[in-house]
């Protein structure tokens, strides 16, 4: 415990004052060094997640033949390797996408099923003309736009994912077309898309 009255008293004697200043300074430095080092070590470890970047996986979600050109969204789980701290889970469901195709000649469009509002999974019942989010009742047209525009709690339309078609040769010589998407995880709640990563 410091003793403030004595410090004041010593103002009459400069050498004493200097010494006590050095003492105070040294005490603070050593004390801080002793307590802050473990704290710092803890904080550095604690902040690790901020230093890690995650990459969006390229995922094969379907065969092109599984997405008829009738303009009706089809639901496909997204299966990719998932890492969690010390575990690696091969081929896990990490999310889901809706694929739809308007016309047999058209390329498929992919929407992530993650709601741009708060991240719930948007649902689709076959026969409906809307995607519906079960959490805060956002709804989207089949083109991904918000059905009630800016009235909707969701700040933006459904997120589209980049699609790539790949041809694969089978052993027998025939070939099939696979639908691949880049499964990007977007931050929720913003008008613009930001990747989480």
């Amino acid at each position, binding site marked *: 415990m410091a003793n403030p009255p004595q410090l004041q008293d010593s103002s009459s004697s400069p050498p004493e004052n200097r010494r006590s200043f050095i003492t105070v300074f040294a005490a603070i430095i050593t004390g801080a060094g002793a307590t802050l080092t473990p704290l710092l070590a803890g904080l550095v470890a604690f902040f690790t997640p901020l230093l890690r970047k995650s990459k969006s996986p390229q995922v094969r979600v379907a065969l092109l033949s599984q997405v008829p050109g009738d303009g009706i969204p089809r639901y496909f789980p997204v299966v990719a390797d998932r890492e969690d701290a010390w575990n690696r889970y091969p081929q896990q469901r990490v999310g889901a996408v809706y694929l739809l195709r308007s016309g047999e000649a058209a390329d498929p469009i992919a929407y992530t099923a993650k709601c741009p509002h708060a991240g719930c999974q948007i649902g689709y019942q076959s026969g409906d003309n809307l995607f519906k989010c079960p959490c805060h009742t956002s709804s989207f047209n089949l083109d991904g736009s918000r059905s009630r525009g800016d009235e909707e709690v969701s700040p933006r339309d459904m997120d589209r994912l980049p699609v790539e078609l790949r041809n694969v040769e*089978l052993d027998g010589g025939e070939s099939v077309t696979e639908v691949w998407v880049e499964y990007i995880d977007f931050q929720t709640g913003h008008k613009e898309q930001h990747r989480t990563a």
Partner: protein
Amino acid sequence: MITPLRSVIDWLDDRAGVRDLVNEALYENVPGGARWRYVWGSTLVMAFVTQAITGIFLWMVYSPSTQTAWESVFFVEHSLTGGWLLRGLHHYMAQLMIVLLALHFIQIIWDGAYRAPRELNFLTGMILMLVVLGLSFTGYLLPWDQKGYWATNVGTELASQAPLAGAALKKLAVGGSDYGHQTLTRFFALHAGVLPALLVGFLGLHVLLMRRHGLHAKDPERGPDCTFWPDQVLKDSVAALGVLAVVLALTVWKGAELGSPADPANPYNAARPEWYFLFLFQFLKWFPGELEIWGAFIIPGVVVTVMFLMPWIGRSRAGHIFNVMLLILLFGGSAYLTAQALYDDNFSAMNERTEENQARYDASQAFLNAKQEAERDAERVVELALSPTRIPPTGALTLVYGDPFLQGPKLYKQHCAGCHNYVDPADPDPNLAHLVNPAPTAPNLYGLGTREWIGGWLDPERIASKHYFGYQGSPFTSDGRNSEMFDFVHESLGEEVDDEQRQTIKEAFQKVAAALSAEAGLSSQHAQDLADADLIAEGRKLIEGGLADVLDSGASCTDCHTFGEMQDIGSPVLDGYMSRQWLLDFLSYPADERFYGEMNDRMPAFAPHDDPRMNQLEQKSLELIVDWLRGDWYRPEHPAAASDSE
């Protein structure tokens, strides 16, 4: 006895001044006498002590990782002696603590007990309230069940939208971009370490300050003063016992629920925060799009800041009135919002669906369905976890993924329900209402392979119904392109058949159905199949050609179908009909020669390729669907024992 005790006390008093301490603690003056209205603060302390005690014991069992969190809570709930009681106390006391906090807060504001010199009491109290809310929020996640997982997910997702550091904060709390081990370890460290330490610290300060300024007496002139011990302590203890009674009653009556294990791949559509955060949840619905930060941060932030400033605002009479008005507005508003949230969710149970309310109705119906489904799932997982195989090292989610009873309906809904119907025509099960297809374009698969179901193919009326070949757009009825089976059944039992012969044919068909059904080898019919061996043998003979003698037309099944001794006749092959292997092969490629060949009507091939990457469903999913359709899943021998938590 007295003297040694006295000397110990003397010894302690010399060294630690215990007499003064005890005197100060116990003989505090209570102006105007002990009163019931002073008990709320003490009940809160008692509630916290309960949480600390039960919490430490739970800590001795709890294991925070994604493969062990749910599992260890399950172990507390179902294996530890009295574990359900321990967890129930912790669960419900946490909720009651929020109620007690609210009461305490209302009383302080109402009585103006926050005014000088008690500002610091009030500030420490506010901090304590935030700490308790933090404990509730972090605690909700720890059991790692669907409900806590998804509700907390939405919570942290919202937090990540906070201006400036939101995204970074979320990452720190969650321990990465996604929920996982690190989320549990971090939440647990907060829940059992950081927050309780803060709570103890601030509670100490709070009580110390309270003692320093004395109790805030409502009307000190009311009666003669008394001391804290024993008059007020008695009242406090009675109140504490009352609180405990409520918690015990809730524990015994409802028990602390444990949903099915958190599944990152299957969102829980009925995710809601705990009831005391519901008002916030509802409040957010008012703020569409980018206005959300107003609902989530700015307005709550302003309100909390104003609350912190209440002691200074309340210095004047007008200020105090403002505080009381704000209090009424806040609690009234929260109550209203909570009621509205509950009403919205239960809307469909209380209203008819109309043109105007359909969106609201459907949303509520979806919520209620999801909730009911989740409750059934939870019951089932517990049943599996209590089975002799117990929980594998990979965690209870492995049980969930491997269970036909849980996965079958989900896979069916996703891949089959668009065409097929699944309903007991005689007695629809409301639990399976979500699998009913009112306008099917394929046969009903309910009870597939059973005698009852097979009997339908051989009954002129039933085969013409939507449950068999009478579905929309069927090519198998008399005017369709493949009407052989339909015509065969109708001719066999047509108008011209007289009653006596009709009876004979029906009996023959019953034997046929029994024999064909035995091919399926259903576990539910196992005993019956054994008992009816003779009947089945007769049935086999009939199928293999014997029917020709019974029917006027002289036709028989093996005119068209391959079966038993009559090989290489035609498809669908009836050997092993609806057995596990038959179904697996069939689902893989129904247009195979063995099955429908060219007659196949739209039934998709789910796994026609040898290379699994090319297939729509992998083998595991096919097996789950088939086992579910055939009713092959684990059933506890004593169903009552499995639901002892109820």
